[in-house]
């Protein structure tokens, strides 16, 4: 009998512990599911954010749902089926700008964050040009975690002096020095697969159009068939004459490698290439590799950004808002960005935490004119971007600037650009 009494006591104790434990958990509040495509190289940066969050809110169990691969192609497909099926994550990674607005905001799937921006004083620390790209007339839709720059030209300073050339300030200058380089057996400009060609195109178009007309292209005031845009396509075609023929089977890293190995002189890439050269190839920013704004775009910062938003009907809304608050804070941004190889969207970040390249980018971020990138989802919705890949193929196949401009105009109308 003694044993059974002990047993009963033990059961009661266990039950009480269980009840208390579950009550305690409910009080500090449950879960936060973060959906992203950050794994591999970018994984540690996300982990740093999650660690920080768990320290601030120890009761919350963070579920890190990543779907890897293909620059988010797979993750976006999974996300779409989840939202269509009525099972949204608490918050998800999305390229800031039209990629979010054109897909999720017009579908009334996101909550307006204007209140949060006012409450946290973000209007004072995020540049106004940036907030404009994140907003529609109905609200502000996401919190940017990082800023990358798209219009950067990379080169190796020692190689340039060996070949006796300088850094071209305009594409005309580039086209002047390119034939000599080609005669020396050096590829003047390296490019890689389809999206990097779109990436190059936006830098060229920005230099031909200038920031004001670039913006007008996206709010529908400038036609795709206008002579300026056709000129941009022609310039792009001239530049492609001086690129490598095997482009479409290379990854962007391989195009960067060509510059590092001295097979190519220049490469236009987003500033993740700086991170690649610093971290993976162990080159020193400034001496090991050099950079400049892509020709004809000095003083303009073409940005892209990963951001997080608040989906309507997410299960743990309060936790998600706490997450967004942390992302927008100075500490949160400075914890994430040095690891990710990008800069803080805030103009008051602590520059001592960043390397030489990122410091220079951050200084430009604070002083330059800011415009959005096409290749990375800021200025155009997903439908336009999807079909623009086809427009690019039409141009690469036919090298006909007019045909490409006509096709782009048709795509812009169908996708409702500027409406």
């Amino acid at each position, binding site marked *: 009998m003694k044993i059974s009494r002990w047993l009963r006591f033990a059961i009661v104790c266990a039950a009480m512990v269980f009840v208390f434990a579950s009550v305690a958990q409910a009080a500090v509040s449950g879960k936060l599911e973060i959906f992203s495509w950050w794994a591999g190289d970018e994984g540690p940066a996300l982990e740093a954010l999650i660690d920080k969050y768990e320290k601030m809110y120890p009761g919350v169990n963070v579920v890190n749902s990543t779907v890897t691969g*293909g620059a988010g*192609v797979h993750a*976006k*497909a999974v996300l*779409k089926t989840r*939202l*269509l099926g009525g099972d949204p994550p608490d918050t998800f990674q999305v390229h800031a700008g039209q990629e979010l607005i*054109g*897909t*999720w905001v*017009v*579908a*009334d*799937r996101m909550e307006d964050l204007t209140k949060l921006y006012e409450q946290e004083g973000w209007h004072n620390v995020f540049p106004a040009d940036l907030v404009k790209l994140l907003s529609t007339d109905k609200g502000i839709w996401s919190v940017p975690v990082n800023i990358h720059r798209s219009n950067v030209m990379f080169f190796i300073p020692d190689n340039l002096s060996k070949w006796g050339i300088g850094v071209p300030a305009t594409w005309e200058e580039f086209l002047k020095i390119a034939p000599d380089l080609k005669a020396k057996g050096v590829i003047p400009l390296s490019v890689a*697969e*389809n*999206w990097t060609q779109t990436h190059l195109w936006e830098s060229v178009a920005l230099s031909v159009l200038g920031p004001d007309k670039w913006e007008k292209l996206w709010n529908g005031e400038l036609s795709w068939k206008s002579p300026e845009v056709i000129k941009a396509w022609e310039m792009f075609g001239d530049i492609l004459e001086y690129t490598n*023929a*095997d*482009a*479409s*089977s290379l990854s962007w890293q391989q195009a960067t490698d060509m510059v590092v190995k001295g097979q190519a002189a220049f490469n236009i890439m987003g500033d993740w290439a700086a991170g690649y050269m610093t971290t993976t190839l162990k080159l020193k920013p400034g001496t090991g590799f050099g950079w400049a704004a892509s020709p004809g775009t000095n003083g303009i910062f073409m940005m892209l950004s990963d951001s997080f938003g608040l989906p309507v009907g997410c299960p743990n809304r309060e936790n998600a808002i706490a997450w967004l608050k942390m992302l927008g804070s100075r500490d949160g941004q400075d914890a994430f960005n040095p690891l990710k190889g990008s800069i803080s969207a805030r103009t008051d970040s602590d520059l001592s935490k960043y390397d030489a390249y990122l410091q220079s980018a951050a200084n430009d971020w604070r002083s330059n004119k800011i415009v959005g990138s096409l290749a990375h989802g800021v200025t155009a919705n*997903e*439908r336009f*971007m*999807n*079909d623009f*890949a*086809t427009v*690019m*193929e*039409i141009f*690469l*196949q036919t090298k006909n600037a007019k045909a490409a401009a006509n*096709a782009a105009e*048709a*795509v812009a109308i*169908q996708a*409702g650009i500027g*409406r």
Partner: protein
Amino acid sequence: MIILPSIALLAIFVYGFIGQTLKVSLTDWGREAALALHPEISYVGLKNYHELFTGFLNMRFRQDLANMFFFTLAFVGLSLFVGLVLATLIDQLVWGETFFRTVFLYPMSLSLVVTGTVWRWLLQPRGGINVLPTLVGLPAGEFLWLSSREQSLVFDWSHILYYICIIVLVVMAFMAYGHHRRGERQQFRTKAVISAILMGILVIGVAGGITLLDYPEEHGFNKAIWGVVMAAVWQMSGYTMALYLAGLRTISDELREAARVDGAGKFQIYRYVDLPLLKPITVSAVVILGHIALKIFDLIFAMAGPDHVPTSVPAITMFLKTFRGNELAVGSSIGIILLILVSLLIIPYLANSFKTGEQ
């Protein structure tokens, strides 16, 4: 009763969803706010299909169709040929048969994504296969395996209906000739009438200058496809080898014996005894490989990425249109077109095997 649950599941998850896809493909789901809780969707009839085959911006889909057609021809043809050669050689082996059988069958156990990734590396323009010749002192290869933009067999899409007409006509005429030779008058007459009608349509069409588009649009056999064909043949020829090997084993030695008595040589036995008896196996292999080729997605996605039009196929465009461009209706239409193409291949085969089964 036992199969009832599986019938119910099949009805919902296969035929129900095919019906759903068909329904979506007749709408305009995919305009602004496609992913809203209650998106505005209206019925547009066959507009999506019409756009896919004639719309200016859907040029990519048409090149995809051409790619798929040439890929299927090259892949099925080469797999059959390589498989047959391997099976014949292994059949002659005195020892080591199991070993070689395993070696050649092994690639089939890999996932297509793995095959694609490995071959992507092998086919890098600056490495892999292109530097092989340097091992024996020859200059490195220059061919851009996956990124070549050269085309051969270029045709004008606006005349596509004529080409289809001509292909069907040739096949029909060929079959009619066969019936005629075997003295099957009834069948001969049917085929001859169909041929004549096609000929008539063709003459009227060409004479009237009827075209699908009002401007010429050129598509062709992209040379970049060869890279994908190589990887696919590497993966699947072991399978055809196994099929043929099994076929060769079922041919009774008595038949060969009889041929030998009649004075046939080794090659003659192979040509006139073995090969004709392998015909049913070839038909099955064509159907199985053919439907794999029509649905191919993962191999190309892994080898060349999503936006590489020279090697793109309809399945990839379907994925991108639906999940990246949010054009769900257009994606569904491409899905239905693929379904029709695969059924064109499989239904005659199934019908035929049911018929022989009953006999």
